[in-house]
């Protein structure tokens, strides 16, 4: 069977067709190269010694070292890492805890102002972050929340909650209401229906929003820069220390090792569960 289709395809392959096909593959390969090269390059750089880093032509073959990673750990990497993990995980859990029931409510109850609420939630996503960032900074200074993980965590809900509500509503809308009605006939309350019938059906949706909101929170920089003070600095804020001032200059090796450590978790997620990521990104614009 395989043989036959193979032959059939071969017969159709005229020179122009082959030429166009190879152009296509060539273009795809160039695109992949451009997409991946910066990541590849910092991974490479993170294993280089100082002399190899500034050498021209750039060293592709060199004797690797772990020195950069060792120094990064000594530069209190794990303090920043701990902040990032706690803030990201807490804000993702809070956003999902708030957003999933809200999406269910907006999907299943017949409310008169539903469109207004959906538009309000969407419009929060269109407001530039700095417009929130500045007043939130002033408010949190007054409340003494600047420089606390709790403050940053709470503000991160702002990034993810609107996305979660919109995405999850679209997932809930896809689940037929017959199921709700069947559960109601069996005597389930609305909350029981939500928790025991609808939620289990929406597993893929929950996976999507968890992954998306994890990535957005982990990668965030502006709010962290403004609000994290000295004690709640996340990995993204910590990274810029290696750009150095006039006297030290760029500390290339440390910068690379730190960068790899910051970006690996999200890249791993993106590659391992790419299906959910794609679904999340494509649905949110519907």
């Amino acid at each position, binding site marked *: 069977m395989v043989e036959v289709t193979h032959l059939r395809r071969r017969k159709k392959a005229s020179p122009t067709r082959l030429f166009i096909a190879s152009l*296509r*593959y060539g*273009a795809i390969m160039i695109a*992949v190269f*451009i*997409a*991946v090269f*910066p*990541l590849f*390059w910092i991974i490479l*750089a993170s294993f280089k010694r100082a002399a190899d880093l500034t*050498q*021209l032509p*750039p060293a592709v073959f060199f004797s690797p070292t772990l020195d950069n990673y060792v120094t990064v750990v000594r530069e209190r990497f794990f303090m920043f890492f701990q902040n990032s993990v706690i803030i990201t995980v807490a804000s993702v859990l809070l956003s999902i805890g*708030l*957003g999933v*029931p*809200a999406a269910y*409510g*907006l999907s299943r*109850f017949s409310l*008169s102002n539903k469109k207004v*609420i959906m538009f309000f939630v969407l419009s*929060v996503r*269109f*407001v*530039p*972050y*700095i*417009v*929130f960032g*500045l*007043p939130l*900074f*002033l*408010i949190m200074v007054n409340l003494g929340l600047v420089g606390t993980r709790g403050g940053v965590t709470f503000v991160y809900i*702002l990034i993810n909650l*609107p996305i979660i509500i919109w995405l999850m509503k679209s997932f809930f*809308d896809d689940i037929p209401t017959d199921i709700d009605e069947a559960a109601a006939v069996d005597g389930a309350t*609305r909350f029981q229906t*939500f928790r025991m019938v609808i939620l289990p059906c929406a597993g893929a949706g929950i996976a999507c929003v968890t992954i998306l909101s994890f*990535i957005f929170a982990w990668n965030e*920089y*502006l709010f962290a820069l403004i609000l994290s003070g000295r004690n709640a600095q996340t990995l*993204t804020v910590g*990274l*810029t220390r290696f*750009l150095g001032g006039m006297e030290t200059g*760029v500390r290339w090796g440390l*910068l690379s090792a730190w960068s790899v450590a*910051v*970006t690996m978790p*999200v*890249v791993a997620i*993106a*590659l391992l569960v*790419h299906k959910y*990521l*794609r679904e999340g990104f*494509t649905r949110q614009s519907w």
Partner: protein
Amino acid sequence: MRTGKEWIEAIPYIGPSLIVLGIIAVFPILYAMAGSLSDWHLHRASSRTLVGLRNYFELFGDPRFLSSLSVTLLFTALSVLATMVFGFLLALLIQKPFRGKNLIRALLTIPMIMTPVVSALAWKVFFFEADIGLINWLLGGLGIRGPAWVATSPSAFFAVVLVDVWFMTPFVMLIMDAALAGLPREPLDAAKIDGATYWQRVSHVIIPMIRGTIVFTLIFRITIDYRMFDIIYIMTAGGPAFDTQVLSIWVYNTALRTFEIGYANAGAVVMMFIIGTVCLAILIFGLRKVGERVWSK
């Protein structure tokens, strides 16, 4: 009244989210609006006086604010246009099934997933660096002496646009890819039988069919670029001179470097109203033909 009873039942589900959004979204905006009406400097906390709309009048005579506005609009226009074109072409390119498609598609999304601060730094210190950066080394091989990319005018602006295009093209590609994969075959086959060439099919059949997706992608892309902070701040911090000082960086610098809080708030409010107007206009004009698909659910 049915909806009234429904509302009471729905409040435990929807209420908490609305309260939280009220606290972290609505209240800060009102706070910013109130603050924008006063002469308010952080370093002299006592002297906060109400000045009405004076900050707004000042804004529109402030060459630095106006230049930030035009830099933002130009940055947004250029990179939205480029990402829409490249993202769409890339999506077309990967439409036909081929071996390893899922892996290729996953690899193509890496720029969008990588921490933006990391990407910006990688481009800045490894590629755009004046003396040992890869780009100038390659140009040197061709006998061209490249500029100090992120430190001189006008290359800094284009460097920033380039990195943003690299960052956001996968976003457009993913959405367009899904839209293309979901298209019905019949209109395309019919056009093919009628003798339409590939590009005629793309422009006369495919693009009109995914118009709704294009409008929504456009809005998302515009809002993301319009608020861009991290990539530009890391690469240039708004420099050289004020070449890449987009509005987000203007607000940040005005508030947290020169401490003119009232003035910065006024700028932020103007920034918000501009993007709100643009989005509404696109929604209204762009979706008129698509119908009520989005809101009718």
